[in-house]
């Protein structure tokens, strides 16, 4: 059966010929009132567009209200900042701290020195679980706290484990007996392990966290977007998130501050133990080590063959927490 072909003039009528497009609109067509459906479509699109715009303009609104500064909004990545620019930022941050907490701090941007790789060792046979380290961490690092005793934001969690095995699943860091150590328990403080193969830095979508040359993992709080991917990636539960703008009593502010470490953080950023970078890069011991009543903590330069930390690695029975996940920590546990 032969196919019927439509007449030629019908084809002309169906397709948009240039002649038809060029034809000027009639007055009725031009001012034809919108039908209901397309009006609603347009209105919905406008609402979506407007809300998107408002969201996009939030930083500008914050700018307007003085919650952030223009310089802060447009600040470059830490590694692209010139030393001169950095100084301007540091002075600005000092002023902000003075304004909010009434204490004029000294915020420094200490760079890693050559030939230094930090490492930490903790003696599990000595630790008594007194939590002085966790509290010293709070005193040093200007974390948020609701009450003076609140250590939820401390970078150190002291785990209480039953003697006989290292079973983290049955560990407890909320223990609060009358006295420690309990007879059948031992204690394992856990903090950032400054892993050489760090899952957290790999998870960060904006490169707001990275490992410096001396092995310290740092966060630029001005660059962090608060997505908390790093927290999910960390096998040691070492990272903390600022759900609100940190509340710190004025008298509890530590004025010795570092840009990448313990300066007061903004809301919505992740923070982490940096082995007290503001102290250790200036040559001092970390705060947790300074207060340990049993001397269970040893800190030093792993690249120095005569350092205390190397003595431990060479002479003691050393244990690496979750060695099987391949993070290669710079934090070692040992027994003697």
């Amino acid at each position: 059966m032969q196919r019927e072909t439509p007449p030629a003039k019908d084809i002309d009528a169906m397709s948009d010929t240039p002649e038809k497009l060029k034809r000027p609109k009639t007055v009725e067509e031009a001012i034809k009132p919108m039908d209901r459906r397309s009006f609603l479509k347009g209105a919905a699109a406008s609402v979506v567009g407007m809300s998107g715009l408002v969201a996009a303009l939030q930083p500008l609104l914050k700018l307007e209200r003085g919650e952030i500064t223009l310089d802060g909004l447009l600040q470059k990545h830490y590694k692209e900042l010139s030393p001169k620019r950095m100084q301007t930022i540091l002075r600005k941050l000092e002023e902000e701290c003075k304004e909010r907490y009434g204490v004029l701090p000294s915020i420094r941007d200490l760079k890693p020195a050559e030939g230094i790789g930090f490492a930490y060792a903790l003696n599990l046979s000595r630790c008594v679980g007194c939590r002085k380290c966790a509290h010293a961490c709070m005193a040093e690092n200007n974390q948020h706290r609701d009450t003076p005793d609140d250590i939820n934001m401390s970078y150190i969690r002291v785990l209480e484990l039953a003697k006989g095995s290292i079973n983290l699943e049955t560990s407890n860091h909320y223990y609060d007996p009358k006295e420690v150590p309990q007879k059948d328990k031992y204690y394992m403080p856990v903090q950032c392990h400054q892993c050489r193969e760090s899952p957290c830095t790999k998870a960060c979508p904006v490169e707001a966290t990275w490992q410096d040359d001396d092995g310290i993992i740092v966060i630029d709080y001005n660059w962090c977007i608060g997505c908390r991917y790093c927290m999910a990636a960390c096998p040691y539960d070492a990272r903390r998130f600022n759900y609100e703008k940190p509340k710190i009593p004025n008298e509890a502010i530590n004025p010795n501050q570092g840009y990448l470490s313990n300066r007061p953080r903004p809301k919505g950023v992740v923070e982490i133990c940096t082995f007290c970078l503001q102290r250790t890069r200036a040559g001092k011991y970390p705060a947790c080590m300074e207060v340990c009543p049993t001397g269970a903590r040893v800190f030093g330069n792993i690249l120095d063959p005569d350092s205390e930390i190397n003595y431990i690695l060479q002479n003691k029975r050393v244990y690496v927490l979750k060695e099987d996940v391949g993070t290669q920590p710079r934090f070692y546990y040992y027994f003697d």
Partner: protein
Amino acid sequence: MRCHYPKTLSLILLFFLGAVLGTSLASNEDEKVMPPSEVPNLPVIDDRHLDKMPPREPVGLDLKKIGWSYDCMECHRMIDKKWERGFKLVEHDDIDFQHGNNRYCFNCHHQENRDAFVDYDGSEIPSNDILTLCAKCHGTKNRDWEAGVHGRLNGYWDLSKGPQTKLGCIQCHDPHHPSFKPIKPLSPPTYPKRATGNPSGQGH
């Protein structure tokens, strides 16, 4: 009909962007390093916020704190030199003597001169040389202490930048009761209110 709003919105956006970029460029041009604050760099890091008290300091050495000279022979020159375990202590009854198998005073104290300690061969160890005395038995601990991994170090790990202090044996350990006494732990983190289970960690 095409909605005209997006065009308007993009215009607004462009305007804002232009304003922001303009100001940022302007601010970059006349970027000035602000003068350092009044306390720009603390020369010495202040550690007042850290409790670095050696463990035994607040409880032990009371006599020394009130000015006692520690001249033991003031009394002991009048007292019989020999003293056996089991003889009830009168003056030193505050001593809680639990040093393991080391049960005799004269294992450490010198029989003739109470201001000194005694070595294996009966010779005197000066009273300020506690380290040698303890090393008589605790050789491995002494070796670790010398290496800086037994006991606590304070101050600077980088000796080119500042001094380091090392606590001696009896600044932490009571020689008559060398094991640490249990202490009250500082406050724990709060158990999340909405979490199930219990903080003991036994099961979920």
